[in-house]
């Protein structure tokens, strides 16, 4: 039996909604796991990515850990797919781009409501927050983009099944939604 196609998935600055949409392919998920093996993914809890055929990236790039994970995905995945509005244009996380990082941090950790011990966290373990939130394709080369918040399960399935069968995915205009 040939090796199964390996898929990795991750959520950067996202809400896991795109992952939920992937799960929304319902019983097709059973077909999918017959054909593929999940590598690094919240579904497997594997923390380190190895060489994969397809990488699905949800969410925008907001901190140094996101950059590291994304570059790692690009390095290890033959085909990288940016999934969802945040990956595509920064989405809701990028709404902080109109404020300085200082303002954002103060709003959350200093002036925010109901704070017990106000102060901007500075633990060395914490990833550095980027000055701005970036869309995925502004940091690495992306092979396909699936718009939507989240992209409908059907669209994710259509693209994945096309790639699994070695076909070029076709996204019909009527299936494109940015919301």
């Amino acid at each position, binding site marked *: 039996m040939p090796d199964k196609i390996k898929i990795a998935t991750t959520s950067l600055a996202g809400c896991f909604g795109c992952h939920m949409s992937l799960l929304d392919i319902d019983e097709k998920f059973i077909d999918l796991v017959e054909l593929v093996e999940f590598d690094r993914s919240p579904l497997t809890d594997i923390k380190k990515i190895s060489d994969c055929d397809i990488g699905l990236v949800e969410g925008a790039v907001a901190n140094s850990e996101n950059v590291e994970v994304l570059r790692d995905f690009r390095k290890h995945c033959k085909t990288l797919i940016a999934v969802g*509005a945040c990956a595509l244009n920064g989405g809701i996380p990028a709404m902080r781009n109109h404020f300085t990082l200082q303002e954002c941090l103060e709003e959350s950790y200093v002036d925010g409501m109901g704070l017990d011990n106000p102060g901007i966290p500075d633990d060395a373990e914490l990833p550095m927050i980027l000055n701005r939130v970036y869309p995925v394709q502004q940091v690495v080369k992306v092979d396909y983009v699936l718009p939507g918040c989240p992209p409908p399960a059907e669209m994710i399935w259509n693209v994945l099944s096309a790639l699994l069968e070695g076909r070029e995915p076709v996204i019909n205009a009527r299936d494109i939604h940015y919301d």
Partner: protein
Amino acid sequence: MPAFKIDDQEVEFIPGQSVMQAALAADIYIPHLCFHEDFKAHGSCRICLVMQNGRYLSACTIPAVEGMDIINIRDDVQEQRKQLLELLFIEGNHVCPSCEKSGSCSLQSVAEFCGLLSPSLPFMYPNRSVDASHADFLLDFNRCILCELCVRASRDVDGKSVFGISGRGSNAHLVVNSADGKLVSSSFEKTDRAASICPVGVILPKHRGFKVPIGKREFDVTAINERRENDAG
């Protein structure tokens, strides 16, 4: 009646009609944003570009001429439109999932129709404000595409000139004609034509947010190209 062709289809026209007007009358969809049947063509968004005799022309401003052979829907033409649409997206802040206009927005629907999947240019994330001063209406300048439909409606129909475009090039932006620049201090009223003309999510009525859920809105139900006319509002 004189006639010309759009994508090999015969289209009759009344002399004086633009290519766009003749197309609309014949139920042929040419993607557009700044054009509106009720107003004089503005020709600024260029989304309605079509190919005639190897050249790109904007369908809303060229008069229909007997024997024209217009190309409307073809990959290379759609590609040009996608690039123009992309610029509109990257020059503003369009967060569709949190926009009240989503699903009934012409920019969104035209881009979906043209197959814009992702931009290739970096986003500008301009710093633009929101004007919530008026009791009934909200202005979210983040989404303005400078189509001047509100400018035309307010000036030509309402006789008020509440809206205008100020600045040049990438500094061009929508302004409100009042002493402090706020909508509440202008003569704007909710019954104005300008109140319901914006094709995107800038001039929005308050107290109605998400009354119609996303997925059940105008263009979710009928795609923009399948409607008989583009009366955004």
